[in-house]
């Protein structure tokens, strides 16, 4: 845990061929600490409602939409402050001075899954979009 880095999460494609979603309810507030895969926000589309989990462990820095706002797929949703190492892992670079990591972390490591077994397409697509 060194100096915090900011990273912004964009609204993922929810897999329904829709271009936007409306924020129903934020499940986090700025300044709040969130765990990776913890509840982040509930959204609705023309077809369904979904809960989007947090892609990061960190602190919520800014929310980019109010409840009731429509957000375009790919538009900024929330900015996190994350530990330098995680921010680096996400963009696939090796933090200076550390041994090279075995792989770029595009998937949730098994030891972090905490017994949860959902396959979360929204999350995966979010990773790809970044």
């Amino acid at each position, binding site marked *: 845990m060194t100096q915090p880095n900011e990273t912004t999460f964009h609204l993922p494609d929810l897999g*329904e061929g829709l271009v936007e979603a409306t924020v129903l309810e934020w499940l986090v507030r700025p300044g709040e600490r969130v765990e990776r895969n913890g*509840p982040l926000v*509930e*959204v609705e589309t023309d077809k369904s*409602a979904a*809960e989007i989990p947090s892609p990061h462990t960190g602190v919520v820095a800014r929310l980019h939409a109010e409840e009731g706002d429509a957000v375009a797929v790919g538009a900024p949703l929330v900015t996190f402050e994350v530990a330098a190492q995680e921010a680096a892992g996400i963009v696939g670079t090796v933090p200076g001075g550390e041994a090279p990591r075995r792989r770029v972390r595009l998937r949730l490591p098994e030891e972090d899954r905490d017994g*949860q077994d959902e396959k*979360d397409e929204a999350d995966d697509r979010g990773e790809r979009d970044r």
Partner: protein
Amino acid sequence: MTRYTLPAPVPLSHTAPDPAAAGVPVLLVHGFGSDYELNWERTGWTRALADLPVFGCDLRGHGASGKPHDSREYTPAAFVGDLAAVLDALAIERADVVGYSLGARLAWELALAHPHRVRRAVLAGFGPRDAFAGTDLENLEADDSPFGRVFRSAAALPGGDPAALAACARGQAAHPFRAEPAPEGTPMLLMAGERDELADGVEDLARGVGGAVLRAPGRDHRTAVAARSLKRAATEFLTAEADALSQS
């Protein structure tokens, strides 16, 4: 989540509880036009209930399960038979059941037909009124009743089979829900969005079974399914000590 297929005239795609999770297994039964993934995984229910051994299936006519086009294949008894078959396949004698919309009705029907197999039931997005009131079941593509809107939304989802869904709707409509007799010995929690018109009268239903009702503020039938307040209440209800439930 690993998927299994129960071989049967109408094959059923289902999941299995995590063997590491402790407690009474929780069967999740999705709503009309939805499926296990859309109703329970993408809405965060399986995350909220991750400490419990949750499992469920795609109902016939839905998701990756068989999709007959004959409305006679969609009687409540046929659905209940499917749910019991999934319990049998997983060697689960008794489960808690959480249902949304049509799934809530089926939780009720399962408890009625097999009282010893359902410990507790959470009925969400469901009420005792006729869900098909004012619905033209022969012309669902243009019908403007509350159910007609649900139908079109469901039929438009990827993988939706409009002919199977229409048959399912007709099969349900041919066997309207009755609040009497009610299942005995199954504590129930009822919940719905505050603006869910398909859950009209849920308070009456709750009074009849001695259960509590929770309403999610501002939510309608489509959006209440993701409401955190409902997931929390369901979790508390399913994990409460038995004597805490008898007060309600």
